[in-house]
């Protein structure tokens, strides 16, 4: 009936497995037919804490990967960092327990119709949705290079099978404990200068997304970034998750990152206004 989140459904999903991977938990959920409508870049909103929980809001997680099983139906993979009480609760749930999810939510990554050179940049658990995306891009004939970064090695999420989906993969850690030492954004300037990139797909901390947007500014390179703002509802009804986005006339609109995102065109986000009030609306 609606045009917003038109495939979204609320279901009870059974946890198929829950494994620690470095600093994260890799959680696999049985989601049946819902698997067919989830796209890379979509997210899921999960109810946490059980029946008598004092946590009244859902928690948002990027859909990391979708697998289309046969008998049991499809499955959804999440990569969860135990951060506060909600994500910790989720990481503690054992195989077989049911959790209440709403998915798929939000705008997914745009997929080019032509084969292009794509650079995928992930920060921390932000790499999670990039592997599924890489597969889709490869299937479209794109070249896929991947850069992953984190503060330290245990926060790099780069599963073996995922690595295969990228043509190249480089890892950066700030403490040098894995891959090269430094920030994941460091090599991008050179790659852009070499003309080796048509599209950048990014997911990670806002500061990383902003840095990439600054690097692509003035170039032809498209920057699709998955933003992460605090979300109370995840479905467009609360207006807590807004980001300042530039309109064609250079005015700014506060758009809901849950339904107008999480994937946004990095060049339209008014990064310097994030967390501030834009100039008055002219009407």
């Amino acid at each position, binding site marked *: 009936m*609606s045009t917003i989140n038109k495939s979204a459904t609320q279901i009870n999903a059974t946890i198929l497995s829950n494994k620690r991977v470095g600093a994260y938990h890799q959680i696999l959920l049985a989601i049946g037919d819902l698997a067919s409508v989830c796209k890379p870049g979509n997210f899921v909103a999960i109810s946490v804490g059980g029946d008598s929980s*004092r946590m009244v809001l859902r928690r948002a997680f990027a859909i990391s990967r979708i697998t289309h099983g046969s008998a049991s139906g499809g499955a959804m993979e999440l990569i969860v960092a135990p951060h506060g009480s909600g994500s910790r609760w989720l990481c503690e749930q054992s195989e077989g327990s049911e959790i209440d999810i709403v998915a798929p939510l939000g705008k997914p990554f745009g997929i080019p119709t032509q084969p292009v050179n794509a650079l995928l940049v992930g920060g921390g658990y932000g790499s999670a949705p990039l592997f599924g995306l890489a597969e889709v891009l490869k299937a479209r004939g794109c070249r896929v290079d991947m850069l992953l970064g984190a503060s330290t090695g245990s926060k790099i999420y780069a599963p073996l099978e995922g690595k295969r989906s990228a043509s190249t993969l480089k890892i950066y850690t700030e403490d040098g404990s894995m891959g090269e030492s430094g920030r994941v954004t460091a090599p991008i300037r050179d790659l852009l200068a070499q003309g080796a990139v048509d599209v950048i797909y990014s997911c990670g901390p806002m500061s990383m997304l902003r840095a990439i947007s600054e690097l692509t500014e003035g170039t032809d390179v498209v920057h699709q970034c998955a933003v992460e703002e605090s979300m109370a509802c995840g479905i467009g009804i609360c207006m807590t998750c*807004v980001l300042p986005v530039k309109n064609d006339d250079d005015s700014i609109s506060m758009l809901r990152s849950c339904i107008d995102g999480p994937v946004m065109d990095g060049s339209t986000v008014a990064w310097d206004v994030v967390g501030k*009030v834009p100039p008055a609306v002219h009407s």
Partner: protein
Amino acid sequence: MSNQVIDLSTTLGNAWFPAPIFTASGCASSGKELSQFFDLREIGAVVTKSVMNKARHGRPTPRMAETPSGMLNSIGLQGPGIDHFLANDVPWLLERGAKVIVSIAGETTDEYAMLARKVRAVPGISALEVNISCPNVENRGMVFACERESSARAIDGVRKIIGGEIPIIAKLTPDVTDITSIASAVVDAGADGLALINTVLGMVINLDTMKPHLGGKTGGLSGPAIRPVAVRAIYQVHSAMPDVPILGMGGVSSGRDALELILAGASGVSVGTASFGDPTAIPRIQRELAALLLARGFSSIKDAVGYAHRDEGM
């Protein structure tokens, strides 16, 4: 099933609604977003986000903080402005057969009157909710609903425009010393009904930055945490003015919560924060409420309204 033997319809002033559970202003945007999860005709009405005369950006982010059994919000009435809203959002809702209560918010008495005039010009709207209590607008010192006179003036301005075509429902803040006094002031000024309660003013300090967490510093507390405050306010006001219909709200997330507000004196119940945690909360609450009413031998909502007062003064 249970709906067959119980009359779930309700009224607020001269407006009739097919069911008792409504969205809460600011917690359903303009309705479209929730229509993916249930049919808007199933519920009482869509109460739309308070709209002002001009488009507004609202407050800076962060705009929310979860708190124990509740949340703080500091949206600052972001919105498209009344003209855009009436031209786009209201027709969409009416076309789909939803009942619509339009919520307006102003910074001056004149703005309220102007908004009322524009709303009156659009046919099909069921009621007008006048939010004179939002604590999030820039000029905090002057929240209308904190004083009898300013509350009365805002409602009086609206009453002069709306001559009884649709009910005027004044939405009050619980952040006052005596809510019955504010309630009587707005009823004397011409409000046909009352919406109780808006959020409670609160604050969270972020322990990393060691500063107020919200962009707007303070925010409005909503959710189950404030339900006892809502029940108290509704009970007090219904006690003082049993004939004035109340649209109750504050922390309702189940049928039992809705029944509590109804027994205290609410004729209808808005659900806000619960929809954030559960997009199908409203139809679920409606089903649970019907079952609870039936189990207690009620055959209609109306019989249950204010039932907790029945032995009062004895």
